[in-house]
C-alpha cells in the first residue's frame, strides 16, 4: 500500500541525508496519491510534501542553526517563566506595592497564626452571612508582634500576609469551594514565638512602657517580643483613630524593633571590648570616688556611689561610670567607630522582620571630651533598638556568630501538613570567638558579683549587663535596661529588656529577665 507512510508536511530540519532519501521515495509515492485525490475532486492542500533539496545535505545547515538558535531562546524563555512562577513570584506577590493581595481575601478565609507551643494567636471566624472577623485570643499580649489586619497591616499579619491568604487545602475542596462561591481556608502560619514566655514577660513588665525581645541564639528564632504601651488588636478598628492621633505615647510603634533608646550602661559592653582590643586587661586597677571631671565636664556614678579601688572587671560589674569615662578618653576613636560598625551600628539589621530601625553611633576624632565621656557610658548621641541589643547578646552567647532573627517558622495547610518551612540563616561572625569569650567572662561577672546578682542561680547560668539610661536632663528619670543571655545545657536564650522611666536596671529590668529565664528553663 502506497498510503502507509505520508511524509510530514512540516519537516523539522533533518540533516540526516539517509532520512532524506527515504522521504524522497515517500514523497514520490505521495505525489501519485495526490494526483488520485485530485482526480476524485478532493482538494490537494496540506499536507504538501516538502521536497528535499538536491543531494547537498549542507543546504539546510544555516536553517538548522537559525531554527535551533530561536528554539533555544524560546525554551530558555519558557523555562525562566516557569522558574519565576515557582520560585521568584512570592517575593513579588508579597510586596506591599502589590495591590492584588487584598483581593485574595475575597476567596480565602484568612489563615490562623499560632505560636510554636501551639497556642492560637490570631484566627478568623465567618458568620452565616459570610462576614469574616479577625480574633486575637490573647488580646494585647501579642499586640505589636502579631499586629493587626485593618487600617493597614502590621507585624506577622503584614509579613505573612500572602501565606495567610493562600490555601493549600485539599485541591478538590478548593475546587468545590470555588464552584460554590465559598471561601477556602487559608494556610496557618506557625511562628517561632513561645506563648508561655511572652505572657510571663508581658506580666513581669507591669505597667511600665518599654520593650522586651527574646531570641534563641543558635537559630535566630524570636521567642518573644513585647512593646508597651499596647492596644487590643480585637478592637483596633474602632480605636484606631484615637490611637493613631495620640502622638505623645506612640502606641502603634513597635518599640522592640523601631524604638530608639539611649543604651545607657549596656553600651559598656562595647566600651569594654574596645578597651580590651586596645590592650587593656581585666586586672587594670582604677580608683573611683563617685565622680570624674575632664575639660569642665563632670560624670557621676549611679546614685553618686564611690566604688573605691577596683579592677577593670570589677568596674564593669559595678557599672562604674567614672572608670568607663576615663577609659573612653584613652580610646582610639576611629577604631571604636569601626567596632560599632562591626556590631552593626549605623547599618540595617540583617532580618526579614519589617519596620526595623537601625541603631546609630557617631563619634568623630575631634569630638569633645564631654561627648567622648558620655558616649563611653552609653549616653551621648548613641541610640539603639532593643532588637539590636538582643542580637548583640545573642552573638556573644553564640561564640560571635550572629543568626538572623526571624519569626515565621513554617506554613501549614488546614490539616496541619507542612507546606513550607523556613530555616535559620547565618549572618556571620560579628565578634571573634576570643572577643565573645572575653565578653562572656565580663557579663558573667555582672551576675556573680555585680549589678545583676539577682540572676545568680543554680538552675541556669546567666550573663548580662544592666543599664540605667538617662533620657533627659532630670537625672532621676532613667530607663531601666538589661541585656544578656542564659544557658542550661543546650538550651539558650538571649534577651533585651527596657522599661521606660522605671529607674535602675538592677531593680526593674533584671527581675523581668529573671521571670523570663525561670519560665524558659522551666522553674
Amino acid at each position, binding site marked *: 500500500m502506497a498510503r502507509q507512510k505520508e511524509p510530514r508536511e512540516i519537516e523539522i530540519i533533518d540533516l540526516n541525508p539517509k532520512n532524506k532519501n527515504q522521504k524522497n521515495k515517500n514523497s514520490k509515492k505521495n505525489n501519485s496519491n495526490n494526483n488520485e485525490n485530485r482526480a476524485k475532486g478532493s482538494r490537494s492542500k496540506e499536507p504538501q510534501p516538502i521536497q528535499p533539496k538536491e543531494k547537498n545535505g549542507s543546504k539546510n545547515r544555516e536553517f538548522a542553526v537559525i531554527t535551533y538558535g530561536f528554539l533555544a531562546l524560546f525554551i530558555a524563555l519558557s523555562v525562566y517563566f*516557569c522558574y519565576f512562577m515557582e520560585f521568584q513570584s512570592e517575593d*513579588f506577590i508579597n510586596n506591599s506595592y502589590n495591590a492584588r*493581595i487584598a483581593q485574595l481575601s475575597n476567596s480565602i478565609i484568612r489563615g490562623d497564626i499560632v505560636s510554636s507551643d501551639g497556642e492560637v494567636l490570631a484566627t478568623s471566624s465567618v458568620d452565616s452571612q459570610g462576614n469574616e472577623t479577625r480574633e486575637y485570643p490573647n488580646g494585647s499580649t501579642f499586640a505589636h508582634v502579631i499586629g493587626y489586619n485593618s487600617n493597614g497591616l502590621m507585624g506577622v499579619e503584614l509579613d505573612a500576609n500572602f501565606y495567610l491568604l493562600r490555601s493549600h487545602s485539599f485541591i478538590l475542596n478548593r475546587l468545590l469551594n470555588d464552584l460554590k462561591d465559598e471561601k477556602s481556608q487559608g494556610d496557618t502560619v506557625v511562628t517561632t514565638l513561645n506563648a508561655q514566655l511572652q505572657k510571663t514577660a508581658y506580666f513581669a513588665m507591669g505597667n511600665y512602657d518599654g520593650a522586651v525581645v527574646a531570641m534563641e541564639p543558635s537559630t535566630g528564632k524570636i521567642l518573644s517580643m513585647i512593646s508597651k504601651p499596647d492596644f487590643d488588636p480585637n478592637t483596633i478598628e474602632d480605636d484606631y483613630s484615637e490611637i493613631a492621633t495620640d502622638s505623645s505615647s506612640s502606641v502603634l510603634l513597635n518599640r522592640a524593633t523601631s524604638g530608639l533608646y539611649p543604651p545607657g550602661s549596656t553600651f559598656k559592653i562595647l566600651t569594654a571590648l574596645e578597651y580590651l582590643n586596645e590592650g587593656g586587661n581585666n586586672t587594670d586597677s582604677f580608683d573611683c570616688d563617685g565622680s570624674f571631671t575632664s575639660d569642665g565636664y563632670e560624670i557621676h556614678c549611679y546614685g553618686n556611689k564611690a566604688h573605691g579601688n577596683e579592677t577593670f572587671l570589677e568596674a564593669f560589674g559595678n557599672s562604674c561610670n567614672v572608670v568607663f569615662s576615663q577609659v573612653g578618653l584613652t580610646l582610639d576613636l576611629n577604631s571604636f567607630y569601626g567596632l560599632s560598625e562591626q556590631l552593626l551600628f549605623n547599618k540595617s539589621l540583617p532580618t526579614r522582620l519589617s519596620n526595623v530601625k537601625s541603631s546609630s553611633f557617631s563619634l568623630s576624632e575631634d569630638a569633645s571630651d564631654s561627648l567622648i565621656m558620655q558616649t563611653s557610658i552609653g549616653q551621648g548621641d548613641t541610640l539603639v533598638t532593643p532588637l539590636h541589643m538582643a542580637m548583640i547578646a545573642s552573638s556573644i552567647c553564640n561564640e560571635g556568630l550572629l543568626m538572623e532573627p526571624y519569626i515565621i517558622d513554617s506554613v501549614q495547610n488546614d490539616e496541619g501538613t507542612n507546606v513550607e518551612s523556613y530555616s535559620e540563616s547565618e549572618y556571620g561572625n560579628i565578634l571573634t570567638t576570643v572577643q565573645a569569650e572575653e565578653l562572656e567572662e565580663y557579663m558573667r561577672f555582672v551576675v556573680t558579683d555585680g549589678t545583676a546578682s539577682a540572676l545568680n542561680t543554680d538552675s541556669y547560668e546567666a550573663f548580662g549587663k544592666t543599664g540605667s539610661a538617662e533620657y533627659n536632663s532630670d537625672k532621676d528619670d532613667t530607663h531601666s535596661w538589661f541585656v544578656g543571655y542564659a544557658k542550661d545545657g543546650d538550651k539558650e536564650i538571649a534577651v533585651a529588656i527596657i522599661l521606660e522611666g522605671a529607674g535602675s536596671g538592677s531593680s526593674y529590668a533584671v527581675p523581668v529577665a529573671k521571670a523570663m529565664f525561670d519560665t524558659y528553663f522551666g522553674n
Partner: protein
Amino acid sequence: MLHLLVTISKYTIMIMFAIYTYDCFAVLRPGMKPEKREHMYKKQTTLIYLILLNANAVLLCSLMDFRIIIMSVAEMIFIALTLLIYNRIYKGASLSVVNNMCMLLTLSFIILTRLDIEKAIRQFGIACVALVITCVIPLFISKLKFLNKLSFLYAIIGIFGLGVVTIAGSTEYGAKLNISIGSVTIQPSEFIKILFVFFVASILYQWEDITELFYASGVALLHVLLLVASKDLGGAAIFLITYLAMMYVATKNPLILVGGFGIGAVGSFMAYKLFTHVQNRVIAWLDPLSVIDDQGYQVSQSLFAIGTGGWFGSGLGEGMPDKIPVVTKDFVFAAISEEMGGVVALCLIFVCISCLLMFFNISMSIKDMFYKLIALGLGTIYGIQVFLTLGGVIKFIPSTGVTLPLISYGGSSLLSTMVLFAVIQGLYIMRNDQESELEDGKTKRTKRNRDY
C-alpha cells in the same frame, strides 16, 4: 454566581487552549494521515470559536456592556471570513499559519475587550481593514514577478520613512516611534521592516561579488543607525538581527553570525553608555523592586500581575491588570497571564513558537532564493519581536518597548503583522503551486510507468 461562571470559563478556556497548542505540534508528527491532519485543523478552528464565545460570554456578564454581543458576532464573522479566504479562495494556504493567526487575534480581542472596550472596538476595526488589504497580498506575491528588481525603491522608502520619524517623530517612553498625520498616528518602522526584508532579499538573492554585500550592509546599517538615532533600540535590534540571519543564509558563512554578535554586543554596550533610558531599563531589569517607585515600576507591576495570577489565573475581570502601565501594548502578555493564567501564557509562547517553526519551514522548502530569503527574514522579524516583548515582560531580558505581534493594541503593529502573515501565505501558496506543476510533469511519467 458571576464568580462561578468566571471560574468555569477560566478552566475551560485553559483546557481548550492547551488542546489547541498541543495540536499545533501534534500535526507535525511524521506519518500522519492527511485526513487526520485536516481533522486536527478543523478541531483547532472549532476551539478558536469556542474560546471566543466562552470568553465573550463571561465578559458580557461581568462588564454588562451589550456591545459585546455585537462584537462577538462580528468577530466570529471575521474569523469565518479569514478562514474562508485562506481555506477556500486561496487553495493551498497553510492552515497551521491561518489558524494561529486567528487564535492570536482572538486572544487579542478577548484581552482588549477586558482591558478597554473602546480600544478593542478600534482594534477590531483595524483588523477588518487589514484583512481587506492583506487578502490580495498572496495574489500579488505570486503574480508580480518584478518584486526582486525593486531594491532601490525599498531602500529609498525605508530610509526616507525612518528619517522622517527621526526628525519629526513624537517621543513616547524615551523613544521616537510615531508620526502623526492629522488624527492618525502611525509607526512607520512597523511597515519599513517588511520592506527592509524585501530590500535585503533583492540584493542578496543573486549576489556575485563582494561590493553588493557592502552595498546591502551599508544600507542596512543606515536603517539601524536611523533607528538608534530615534532611540528605538528594540527596533534597531530587530533590523540588525534580521539582516544578519538573511546574510548568513545567503552567504553560508558562519563568520557573519560571529561578527554580527560582536557588533550587537559592542552596540548594546555603547547604547548602555550613551542613553539614560537604556540604563534605566537595565536597572529595572536587575532589581525592579529596589527601584519600584521609579524605573522599576512597570516591570514590578507586570511581575505582580503574573505572579499573583499564578498558573491558573484570577479569571477574566477578576485581576488588576489596569495597574500595569501600557498594559494594552507592550505588557499585554502580563494581563493575559494574570487573568487567564500562567498555563495559557505558556501555551501562548508555544503557539508563537509553532508559527515561527512554520515560517522557517516554508522558507526552507522554497527553492527560489529571493522568496526563500523573504520568508526567512519575515520569520526572523517575528521571532525576535516575540522574544523581545515576552522577555521584557517577564524580566528575562531588559524591556525594549516592542509590541507582541497580533495581540498588542496598535494599528500599525496589527496591520504590519497581518501583512507579514499574508506574505508568508503568498509564498507558501506559490511554492505549492510550483510543486503541483512539477508534480503534474512527474505524474505523467508515473502514469506512463503504471500503464506500462
